[in-house]
Every structure is written in structure tokens, then in C-alpha cells.
């Protein structure tokens, strides 16, 4: 018995985690897929499911909810055509160049999926935003992901680099910069609602002075979106900051000094010596942030409830609203669309950016 336990202890150590993930992650994932293809109707005690085929997806992508998920379509503007065609050309060039260099079937299929997703998103962008029509929750979520993560990454990295210089008081700054991470996202949402109040908030005077005293940012789609990104960044820059700080500090100091002795300037040292060494970590940090950013739901819900209209609604929030109106099929379909976009973008990013960097290192 003892011997048997000893031999199988490794599996017994792993088993609880695997079972928990199977029950609470894999099984719901499958069940959700089935729900996405069903029509769910609530009856007295429970509910009934009927197979509905692609109808749930159809409704979201081509049907009555198209404006909600993707945006309102119409004839493309000139700018839309230009950007769309340019993106298409660039993507085709990318694929052709890949096929000419080192072709593998798996690599090609993977890149084709990336290609299709990028093409779809590019034309979505061209058809809605660039043609002057409102976009849907997918566009809003991508806005949060791209602009939010970009801003967080730039500012977080810059602050981390500043703090990694040995200057007096850098410890204090580190502690201060870390603080927003400890504040609950709900709290961040409400605090920024207070801050942004144009009549009672701390900057009321400023608003009045520029003549926006009665204006409310919550009624302007772009102002509302930007405000959510500001709040999100306030909360998550510390994360980027602290990871990048550790990365900068892990670069051996003598490399720095050697470069300086060799006569390299600050910028040169940064670009040639420091940046290549922290790049893998930067890519990983970015990946983590992007994964989390796709899930955004609490800030829009707290700060604007998705309004004005659907301007700040993320895909997660849309699925939540669908669930609240007891449309389980649509909720699951929307969630699956989100999952698909997230997985394709994250896996593409991981394979084409993170792994490429890792492989490039000798």
C-alpha cells in the first residue's frame, strides 16, 4: 500500500487540479457550446433545450443583432475603401512572403486563420468607424484592448525605466505606483465617476472654465470610451510597471557600464543593450494584459452601464445582458464569438511575437 502510494503520488498530486478544471472549466465550455446551438425555453421547474443550428450565431452576425455586436453597416466611404484595401494588400503580401520562405502545413493553416481574422477585423474597422457609422461591442472591446493595453504598456514601461535608474527616493515611488493595483475594479469605476463629475467633482472648476459645465461625458460615446480606458489604465499600469521594473533590474548593470565606456549614449544603450534583453518579458506581460483586457466587464457596467446606447458595451457585457433577459442561447453564442476572437488573437500574438523572439535568441 505504502509503495503503491509512493509510486502514484505524482498523479495523485496532479489529479485534483485536473478534476477541478474538467468539472468547472472544460465541462462548462462544452455545455456552453451546446447552449450556443440551442434554443432554451424556461418552463415551470426547469428549462427545455431545442437544437437551433446556427440560428443564434446567425442572429448575432448577420441578423437583428448585427448592429449590436459588429456595428451598423452601409456603403463604404473613400477612406474606408483605402484602408480596407491597404490592409488586405498588406496581409496578402505577408502570407505570400511566408509561403516563399519556409512553408509548413501547420504553419500555413495557423497563419490562414490569423489572416482571416485580421482581414475580417480590418474590413469591420473600415466599414464602421472609417465610414462614419457606429460600431458594435466587438469594436468597443478591441478599442479597450488595443488602446488600453497600448497606453498601459507605454506608460508602465516608461515609469519602470525611470524607476530603474538609481535615484534617491525610487523606493517610495515604487510603493506609490503599486497602490492602484490593490483597489477593487468596482471601486476604481466609482472613483473615476466621482472624479469625472462635471458639477460636483474635483475638476468642476476646470470644466466650468472651459465652458463644459453642463456637459456630461457619459452622453458622448468617445468621451465615455476614453474615460473607461483612463480608469482601466489607472488600475493596470502598476501591473506593467512592476513586471517591467523587475525586467529592467534583471539586466546586469555591468552591461550598461560597458556600453557607456564604449561611448554609447543613453538612447543607444537603451535600444541596443537593454531593450533586447527585456523584450521577451515585455511580450509576455503584454500577452497577459491582452488576455485580461478581453474580459473587461466591470468597468463599463459600473461607469456607464454600457451607455450611451451601446457605445461602451463590451462583448462580455453584451452576453451578460443577453443572459439577464433569459436568452441563454444568444448569451452563449456571443460568449463563444468572444472566445474565438480572443483565442485567435492571443495565439497569433504568442506564436508570431513571443515565440518568434524566443526562437530568434540563440
Amino acid at each position, binding site marked *: 500500500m505504502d509503495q503503491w502510494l509512493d509510486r502514484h503520488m505524482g498523479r495523485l498530486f496532479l489529479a485534483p487540479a485536473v478534476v477541478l478544471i474538467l468539472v468547472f472549466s472544460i465541462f462548462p465550455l462544452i455545455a456552453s457550446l451546446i447552449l450556443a446551438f440551442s434554443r432554451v425555453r424556461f418552463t415551470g421547474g426547469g428549462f427545455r433545450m431545442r437544437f437551433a443550428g446556427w440560428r443564434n450565431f446567425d442572429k448575432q452576425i448577420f441578423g437583428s443583432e448585427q448592429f449590436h455586436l459588429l456595428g451598423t453597416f452601409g456603403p463604404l466611404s473613400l477612406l474606408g475603401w483605402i484602408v480596407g484595401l491597404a490592409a488586405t494588400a498588406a496581409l496578402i503580401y505577408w502570407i505570400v512572403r511566408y509561403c516563399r520562405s519556409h512553408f509548413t502545413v501547420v504553419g500555413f493553416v495557423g497563419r490562414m486563420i490569423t489572416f482571416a481574422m485580421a482581414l475580417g477585423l480590418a474590413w469591420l474597422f473600415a466599414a464602421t468607424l472609417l465610414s462614419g457609422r457606429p460600431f458594435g461591442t466587438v469594436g468597443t472591446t478591441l478599442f479597450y484592448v488595443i488602446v488600453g493595453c497600448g497606453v498601459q504598456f507605454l506608460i508602465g514601461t516608461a515609469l519602470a525605466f525611470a524607476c530603474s535608474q538609481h535615484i534617491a527616493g525610487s523606493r517610495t*515611488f515604487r510603493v506609490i505606483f503599486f497602490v492602484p493595483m490593490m483597489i*477593487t475594479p468596482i471601486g476604481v469605476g466609482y472613483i473615476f465617476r466621482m472624479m469625472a463629475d462635471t458639477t460636483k467633482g474635483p475638476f468642476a472648476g476646470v470644466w466650468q472654465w472651459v465652458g463644459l459645465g453642463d456637459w456630461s461625458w457619459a452622453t458622448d460615446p468617445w468621451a465615455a470610451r476614453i474615460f473607461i480606458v483612463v480608469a482601466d489604465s489607472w488600475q493596470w499600469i502598476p501591473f506593467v510597471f512592476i513586471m517591467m521594473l523587475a525586467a529592467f533590474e534583471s539586466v546586469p548593470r555591468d552591461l550598461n557600464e560597458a556600453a557607456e565606456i564604449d561611448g554609447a549614449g543613453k538612447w543607444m544603450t537603451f535600444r541596443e543593450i537593454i531593450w533586447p534583453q527585456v523584450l521577451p518579458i515585455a511580450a509576455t506581460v503584454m500577452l497577459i494584459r491582452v488576455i485580461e483586457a478581453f474580459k473587461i466587464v466591470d468597468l463599463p457596467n459600473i461607469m456607464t452601464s454600457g451607455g450611451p446606447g451601446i457605445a461602451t458595451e463590451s462583448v462580455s457585457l453584451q452576453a451578460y445582458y443577453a443572459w439577464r433577459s433569459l436568452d441563454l442561447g444568444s448569451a452563449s453564442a456571443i460568449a463563444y464569438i468572444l472566445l474565438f476572437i480572443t483565442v485567435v488573437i492571443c495565439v497569433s500574438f504568442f506564436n508570431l511575437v513571443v515565440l518568434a523572439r524566443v526562437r530568434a535568441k540563440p
Partner: protein
Amino acid sequence: MSRGLFEPRKIGQMAPASKVALYAILLAWSLFVIFPIYWLLITSVKTPAAVNEGPFFLPWVDFQPSLHAWRDLFVLDFADTVRAYVNSIVIALSSTALSVLVGSMAAYSLSRIAFAPNLITILYFLVLLIGACVAIGVFGADLWLTLAVAVALFFLLARAVGQLYTVRLQNGDILFWIISQRILAPIVVVVPIYIMFQSVRLLDTHVALILTYAVVNMPIVVWLMYDFFNSIPRDLEESAQLDGATMIMTFREIVLPLSRAGLSATTLLVMIFAWNEYLFALFLSTSRAQTLPILVAAMNAGERGILWWTMSVAIIIMIIPVVVLAIVLQKYISKGLLVGAVKG
């Protein structure tokens, strides 16, 4: 200043102008970080009048601080507040304990033992699982009967199916599978989880939230602790093994004490996530198991608009435990989490 004006700067030293610019940037950002928190603190001691009549900045100078909002929350709504608080504490602590324990056990065994599961057997298992789900959900087959048939089929044929064709997975694949669960947005799985707990009548209980949070946070634990365990020299465990210790004993006596830094950092992170979680709580708790984020979010819905003063108090009491925890675990955080995480 003993250094002459025209003497060249030492290696690694900055020009005075760039130093000033650097401090200016750092101070500006500090202000941006601190001001919202300051505003939160002073709003919590404002009376409704002091909030509504426009921005006041300095207590005692601009306005008279009062504990009016604190009294509201702790005296008038005492029962609600305390219940949510206790719920949050119970759920955050238990789910963190569960996920750190289970996650670090898994991480440990992945970092030390070579597994080689057969992909084909796993696919067979998945096909059975999907089949069972379809049978139950769409065709209305009996739950227990279908499960029994599926389990029986799996154990009867697993070996045979596995021998048809063998594709061995490695530890890295298992690790990736566990970590990739983090990509799942909660919204994708929450509806089935809701139905699951509803069918066993566990909706709106602590158990439902504890289990769900534990699973959602497990990928983080496995990822961080895997790196951390890999950094512990194996000699120590091999030596313990030769001395006669079992794996459990080695884990408890040698590995866990040595990973205190990593464990503390991971615990803190997971605890923060569990403490702040919003979406699952929104679905899985209504009243009895209601947690703090839901309580705070629900304050939105009052008919008099948002009572900013009470809201501020609620947010502050929500932040306090996290800050306390961070201070307690502070000395481990810098060397634990960051080093481990950044290496990965």
C-alpha cells in the same frame, strides 16, 4: 560639492537637467495615482451637503468632516454590511487556500515528474463527454444513466483506443493546457456553471463561489509556482527521498517551507483576484452569499442616485484588507512573485 564643474560625470550618473525632468515625471504620476485615492478618503467623511454643493478639497478648511456616512453603513445597514464582509472574507480565504493548495500540488508534480498521457485517450474522453452532454441536453436523456454509460464506456475501451494510435503529450503540454484556461473569459463558462449549481441547489451558497474562484485562479497558481518550484534545487528533495521521506512529507517538510516567498506572493495575488471578483458573484450569488463587490455595485441602484459618501466608505473598507495583506506579505512579494513570474 567637491566635484569640479567641468569634471566628467561618473559612469551611470545622469545630467542634472535629465534628473530634474525625471523627478518631474515621477512626481506628476504620483499625483495622478494619489489624487483619486485622496478624493475617495475625503468624500467618505463628507456630509451629503458637502458633496452636493460642489468640490471641496481640504477637510476642516473647506468643509467640516463628519462620520455621518460611516455611521450610515455601520449602524443603519449593519446587518447587510457585515454579512457581505463576512461572506467576502470566507469566500476569498477558502478559495485562495483551495486553489493555492491544489494548484501548487499540481505545479509541483509537473515540475518533478514526467507525465506522458496519450492524446488519443484524451480525445476519446472528450468525445464521450460531448456525446453525454448532447444526449442529456438536447435529447433529454436521463442524467445519471448517461453518465454511468459514458464512464463505463471510457474505462472499458480507454486502453484499446489508446493502443490504436499513440501520441504522447509532455509536461509542457499539460502545463500549457492548465495555464491556457486563463484565456477563458468568465462569461463563456458562467452560464453552464450557473445551471450546474442550480441543479444541485448550491446557488447562492459559499461553496459555489469558493469552488468557482478556486478553479478560475488555479492557472495563475500553477504558472507562478511551477517556475518557483523549478528554481528549488532538486538535490534537497532527492536527499529527503533517500532519507525515507514520502512525497507528501517531502512536499510538506522541504518544498513548502522553501517556497514561502513564492507562496506568499501567489497567495496575495490570488486573494486580490478572489476578493475583487465581480462577474461570477453577479451570477452565482443573490442575497445570502452576496459579496462586497456586489454590495458596492448595488449601491448604484438607489432611487436618490448614488450616495457618494456611503459608497466611498464601502470602497474604503473593501480596500483595507488588501492593503493590510500587502503590508504583511510585502517583504516576500518583491522577491517572490516578480522574480518567478518574470523568468517564465
